[in-house]
């Protein structure tokens, strides 16, 4: 619960040039709210954060994914936007798929869903408790956008790159939001959350996103970006290592008169 927070901020180790990922590794639970807020142009009043907790009950659900299996179709993003807001908009999606068509596999795609962190820095640092751990719903790390004051602290604090807090316009005002594992999906006939379904998982045609109940390894992306491919994938001729040989023959039978 937001109110459970204890003082936890120690020092600033965030400075320009240090990536969010470096920060995650170096800092883990440590956040540098004051320094960051001070360096952020104020979009709204930024009251001091309430005392932050250092430990939180673990989320009962996580999204893991396979960034080598993803085809970049953005169906997951549009599903996320649709079930939460009733519209289609990549910018409203709580999972971001970033891709460079000219890039080299596997770096041409980066999948960026929320990690439901062990220590959710977004929750820890929200000055008004709009970001919270929903103890009534599987401890999902959530943001109540209606309580968000628009200070952007959680955008700065989420240690992931890109930050998994998502800035959306609601009633003309900029507010933060984040993955709620589909707990609150007014535009979907299914129940979400840890015991239910997740829109992105359900619609991904490559089955590149999976819901798991056990907290993944928190180090870097290892625990989250996992191999969800089986032999059928290999037999498409899609390998992540050129020493691997598919079981099936990939060549074409050449018959006379065949066009392509």
């Amino acid at each position, binding site marked *: 619960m937001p109110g459970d927070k204890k003082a936890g901020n120690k020092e600033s180790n965030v400075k320009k040039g240090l990536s969010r990922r470096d920060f995650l590794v170096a800092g883990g639970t440590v956040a540098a709210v004051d320094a960051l807020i001070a360096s952020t142009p104020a979009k709204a009043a930024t009251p001091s954060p309430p005392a932050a907790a250092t430990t939180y009950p673990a989320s009962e659900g996580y999204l893991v994914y396979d960034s080598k299996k993803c085809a970049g179709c953005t169906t997951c993003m549009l599903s996320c936007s*649709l079930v939460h807001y009733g*519209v289609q908009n990549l910018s409203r999606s709580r999972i971001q798929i970033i891709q460079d*068509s*000219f890039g080299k596999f596997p770096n041409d795609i980066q999948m960026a869903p929320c990690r439901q962190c062990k220590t959710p820095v977004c929750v820890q640092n929200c000055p008004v408790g709009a970001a919270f751990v929903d103890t009534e719903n599987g401890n999902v790390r959530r943001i109540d956008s209606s309580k968000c004051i628009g200070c952007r602290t959680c955008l700065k604090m989420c240690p992931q790159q890109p930050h998994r807090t998502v800035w959306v316009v609601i009633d003309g005002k900029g507010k933060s939001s984040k993955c709620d594992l589909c707990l609150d999906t007014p535009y979907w006939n299914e129940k979400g959350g840890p015991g239910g379904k997740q829109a992105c998982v359900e619609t991904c*045609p490559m089955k590149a996103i999976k819901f798991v109940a056990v907290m993944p390894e928190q180090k870097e992306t290892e625990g989250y970006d996992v191999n969800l491919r089986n032999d059928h994938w290999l037999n498409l001729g899609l390998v992540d290592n050129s020493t691997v040989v598919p079981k099936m023959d990939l060549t074409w039978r050449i018959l006379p008169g065949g066009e392509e």
Partner: protein
Amino acid sequence: MMKGGYTGKILRVNLTTKTIGTIDTAKYEEFGGGHGIGSAVFFDLVGDQLPFDAFDPRNCIIMMASPFSGTFMPGSGRCEVQGLGPMLYPIEWFGHSNFGGRFTAQLKFAGWDGIVVEGASDEPVWINIVNDKVKIESANGIWGMDTWDTQEEISRRVVPDLKYGEWAELAENCFTTQIPAVVCCGPAGENKSRLGALLHGPGSQAALCGFGGVFGSKKLKAISAIGTSDVPIADPKAFMDARLWYRRFQWDVDNPREAERFGTGGPYALISGRPSGGNTLNRDIPLTPARAAACASCPRGCRMRLATSDSNESVCGGTMTITVQGSTKFTRQGNDLMQKYGLGHWQLIPLMGYVQTLYRKGILGKGKQIDTDLPLDRNGTFGYADTLMRQIALREGIGNDLSEACARFAEKIGRYEEDVNSGELSLAYYGTANHYDPVIEAEWGFGSLLGERDLMLHMMSNYPIHWMAWSGDPYLTAEETAKLYTDAMEPYQGDPFMVDHSDGPTGIYSDSKVKQVAWIKHYEKFWVGAGGFCGWRWPMCITNNTADRRGPTPRAEEKFWNAVTGNNLTFADYMEIGHKIYTLDRSIWVLQGRHRDMEVYPDYIYDRPTRGHDMTMYIDGKWKYDTGAGRKLDRAKVEDFKTRFYKFEGYNHENGYPTRATLEKMNLGKVAAALEKKGRLG
């Protein structure tokens, strides 16, 4: 009115006057979207001035999105480009070409249902669309670049502090992690090559019609779009339910049906919806590590992106135009070079073949009748391909004539009649190449001939049947195929002879075939054209991905369209809008000079006995797969077929012109007036 799917406005840019305006989408809603609205806008803007040339500043480039663009409607990520096509022959017909990727999605997120470009700039420019901010920018430093560098440079100019993998705040509260979607011409287009393609990403090209050349004639290098706004959906819950329902028709990547049969690299790859099968250049062991790569919202992902990043996102012709013998690596790079020059592969293939034919005949070469320093004896090497493509793109040497594309090049050297009629230069439809066999897969031929260029719609009847039959292991008998296939062809369902490819009484000249060709044209115009569908995904009348082999067509189309737009029409209603769009297109061609006498094949297609191809045929009272080898097309029967087709569609059978009654019934009275003014009302 306009509940969902549309943003409500079309961007209108005049490059002569440098003005930027808008057109209300609502005014054109009756045409659906995409190609339908594009044709109507074209007619309204310049219909009364036809005919004029494709490189005339009055020509427009129209790129319309559809109500589905920017949504997760499966396989709707294409962008339809329209305008007079300089590749087409003998008249530069009002044509269309389309490309996949993310362009229309970003256009919609930017708040636009489409873009219409008029006029011509006097200096190189590009159009910069960031949400509702639209600017005509100088292309200084970009003009002359290849299509890849152009896109990279423009992305940097659009979002100067763009960091891959980070959010960018385009304007206050407008965040995106996405890279701007850029479509551009290459050096070929800049030099008004009639082979000029439009490129988006490394390998998505609008290959037909020569719209790259039209960009060049307007001194328009590129259009970039990026946006962060909402695409409204009329019934979000129904749309989500429809998307989840559609999953049963997809290739199941973790557990595909009959994997042994469908999982190999063979012909089933093309029809099963299997990911990554479109890139033909990564099948040799050792494989290059790669992913399947999809256009926006496509559940198939027919393309690849590779660890070597060569042949990224190219498929089919984009990976098969250039062959460098003995080297997959250089073959990929040769095809990439074609993409960078911005040359349309589907015209480059016959052109390169023709150059070699002329060389072998001793007509073309150093010191020959057609003198060129091309290293013709080095065909099959990277150097030859590069030299040839460079000369075409830059109009150097012989390239200046070759850049006029196949038909006009042949005409220029005085060989058009002889070489096209003999099939030495295998053109078939208005300067575009022969493709699937019009003698057997007659709907492909008729669908092209009664259009303005090669049909290029692979999922239309012939294709799933063609490859299933060719595999030697068809998953349906010919009889089952005919029944299931035509069950889906509303409103003409229940007539299996629509897919009879025999030349018997129910075959390729029959009234059933008339219906099938009409179905194809209407589907092409509404679902593919107005809906922005991919021709490799839709329609899907049969599929191996379901137990009963039924595909999502026709239920999916209406389900999705109604959920998105809030309309409540049936598949058949929408097909009738397709009929209307086809009639409008046809009227525009008539204004340009189309007459039924022009709707004929070159001689070789009639006179050369075909090698045939396994297709569904009804012979001696039985359905079977048969090749029809040795068949010749009968001129009189083709003409008789056309007569019945025109009548079926409501056109005058003597000239093929739409009639007043047909046009007025379709609320196209002003089109009837325009035709009448020219004395060409049917």
